[in-house]
């Protein structure tokens, strides 16, 4: 298992009970979306994976390591977390050094640092900005740089907190493509997001959280098309699902998450009627 949560409870110093007995298992190479309203515990859950937060009750095992016994630096090597506003954490004078920072902290030789930084920048199409200031990049480029920073040391688990916030549709498309590539490389990718359309296109395993508890865990097409579950987690269903729900009386299946599938259904009905 990549990560195991065993009856995890977490209470912030402000007395907010953010996680209430969460038990979950994340398998290697899995793509998982954590969804739920603001304050449902998505970010808190992700922060437990690299040890930034330690459970007050229960335990979290990441790649066989009990997070209570390891430092954040140790856990970060196996589980990289891209923060929601990671682009606000830049401080180096150029993109290369920004990516190299963590690798140097982890003690890699300069030769390895150079190779890994070049590879990560290329993967995220940022290699032409290597000597440029990270502050001068566009919003989408900054987001990709934040991901390149984490990918540079090849953690087996990659956690992305709200990766699509503030991104235009083109950047979202690139982001989707890169997440898929990371996942096909065998990495476990965990996303905390509100973006149902983005999730619907990725088709991950979906975990719905509400008030620090898991309210649903299963296939994307089963959960995001279930009106009751989605309401419980205070999110919306994808627009296509709403449209096809209205057409259910005409024989359409409402469990439609992508446009191609929707078009296929419409064509099927139209052909059937024209015959």
């Amino acid at each position, binding site marked *: 298992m990549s990560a195991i949560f065993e009856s995890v409870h977490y209470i912030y110093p402000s007395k907010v009970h953010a996680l209430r007995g969460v038990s979950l298992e994340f398998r290697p190479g899995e793509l998982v979306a954590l969804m739920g309203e603001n304050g449902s515990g998505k970010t808190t859950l992700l*922060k437990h994976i*690299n040890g*930034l937060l330690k459970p007050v009750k229960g335990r979290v095992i990441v790649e066989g390591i009990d997070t209570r016994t390891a*430092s*954040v*630096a140790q856990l*970060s*090597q196996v589980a*990289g*977390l891209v*923060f929601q*506003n*990671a682009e*606000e*954490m*830049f*401080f180096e004078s150029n993109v290369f050094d920004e990516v190299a*920072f*963590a690798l140097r*902290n*982890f003690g890699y030789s300069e030769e390895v640092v150079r190779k890994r930084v070049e590879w990560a920048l290329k993967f995220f199409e940022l290699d032409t900005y290597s000597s440029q200031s990270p*502050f001068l990049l566009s919003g989408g480029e900054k987001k990709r740089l934040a991901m390149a*920073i984490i990918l540079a040391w090849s953690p087996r688990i990659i956690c992305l907190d709200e990766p699509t916030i503030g991104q235009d549709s083109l950047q979202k498309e690139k982001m989707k493509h890169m997440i898929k590539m990371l996942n096909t490389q065998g990495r476990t990718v965990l996303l905390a997001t509100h973006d149902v359309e983005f999730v619907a296109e990725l088709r991950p395993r979906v975990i719905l959280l509400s008030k620090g508890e898991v309210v649903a865990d299963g296939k994307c097409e089963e959960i995001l098309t279930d009106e009751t579950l989605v309401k419980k987690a205070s999110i919306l269903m994808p627009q296509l699902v709403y449209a096809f729900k209205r057409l259910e009386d005409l024989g359409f299946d409402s469990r439609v998450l992508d446009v191609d599938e929707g078009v296929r259904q419409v064509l099927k009905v139209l052909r059937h009627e024209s015959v």
Partner: protein
Amino acid sequence: MSLFEGLRFRPGTTFIHRLDPRVKLATSTMVLITAVIHIDIVIILFLLMLESLVILSAKVQNLWIKTIRGALPLVAIVFAITFFSQYSREPVISTGLGYALTYSLRLLVFLSSFSLFFLTTTPDEIALTLQQLRVPYEYTFAFVSAIRFTPVMAEELQIVLDAQRARGLEVDKGPFTKRIRNLIPVLVPLLVNVIRRSYELAEAMEVKCFGASRKRTSLKQLNMSRKDIFFLVVVLILFSVGVSVKLLGLEPVKTLPLLGQFFPA
């Protein structure tokens, strides 16, 4: 981070909370002046004891303890610097320790007096106080905004710290110089965010016609009650006694002579 806790107002209904903010500010200033003019440990301890009583009556002792706990590294630095500078002038351990202790306690007096003021006074009351002291509104606004944003900054500092720790940064490991260098990845993003936020705030204020009217009016006016005047008179008497003791050279004891028994010259 807990040092900033002492700058955040907490609602309350105690006598101290209800005191006129001008009286509270005057009291804090007088405590500060008394602590500055005296280096006598007995007087400093007396001030600290008086402050503790006021803190207890304002029921903010838990937050005050948090503030003091947050300030302990700063107190330790003051202790070390005072001890070594005094010891280099006069190589007597007991005198050095006496001075170091006095200066550290004096810092606690400063922190406590202003922490008490900020914990029990709303930002609006602070703004009114400054306005009535004829401080231009632009400066009042800047000062009150700084206080309001302190908890936000503390939260932001924690987020930046977490993000850099996730990149393998270990702020509290390694020799002293490395630890100082390790603060750069935390302080640079924080500074950039502060500048960005200040621009955003300035734009938001411009949009809301900040400074359009030369003569500002206030919904609330500060009025001193009998209780306020009584409290101020008591503080003024104590302050006069403190100043007189200094002027007449009646300080009970400069450092701690008893320490000499344990650390003979």
